[in-house]
């Protein structure tokens, strides 16, 4: 799925990485538990989360995840944006809940990991 299409579906706002919106992603994983995210050994994944702190970005960095979608209009700090830019990531924010976001993207064809 193209990132631009994902942004459209969740009525999202791109925080950084606009230049990558033509990129595609195959899998989605929704979690607020970073240790769980670190168990996933799959490329081409979007992390969908309500957890907003620098460890979210660090976790994505270690797990080679380039795309993060934050739910419920969570506040993304300047420090998080700086870290994300250093790692060439795309950060998107939506006002929808984790449940609604996951449901919409699943319906639209984003694949689950398990």
């Amino acid at each position, binding site marked *: 799925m193209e990132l631009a299409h994902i942004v459209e579906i969740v009525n999202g706002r791109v925080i950084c990485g606009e230049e990558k919106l033509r990129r595609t992603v195959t899998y989605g994983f929704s979690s*607020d*538990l*970073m*240790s*769980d*995210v*670190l*168990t996933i*050994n799959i490329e081409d994944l979007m992390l969908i989360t309500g*957890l907003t*702190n*620098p*460890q*979210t970005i*660090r*976790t994505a*960095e*270690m*797990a*080679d995840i380039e795309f993060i979608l934050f739910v419920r209009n969570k506040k993304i700090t300047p*420090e998080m944006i700086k870290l994300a830019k250093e790692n060439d990531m795309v950060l998107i924010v939506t006002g929808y809940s984790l449940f609604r976001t996951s449901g919409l993207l699943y319906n639209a064809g984003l694949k689950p990991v398990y």
Partner: protein
Amino acid sequence: MKLNFQVEGGNFTKAGAASSEVKKVLKQLGVPPMIIRRIVVALYEAEVNIVAHARQGIISIDLYPDKVEIELRDKGPGIKDIPQAMQEGFSTASEEVRAMGFGAGMGLPNIKKNADKLHIESLVGEGTTVHITNYFAKP
């Protein structure tokens, strides 16, 4: 090549800085991405453990042509029962640690899963030392 990092207990804004540096160095050395991933996931979980549980720690990285040896030595509460701590779901983490997305009792199992060799020594009231070895190509 040797790399050393100081880790401050309780400082979550910096947690992962050492792992991030190591990842950059491994990339520059041309280590395959799937192997880098295993190394940095193990290292990052161990680094977060120092921040979550200890007062301070030192991470020493020894890079050889065929492997990396990592030692994480901390001053902290130590681990009373290592086999129990290795069980998935066992955790003594604080609410603050849980709020950071960790502390679900998955850290040590994650380290074990991603390390080619893992050895943990601990003295209650003194601290814990974690040794991780990973090979760049499967031996």
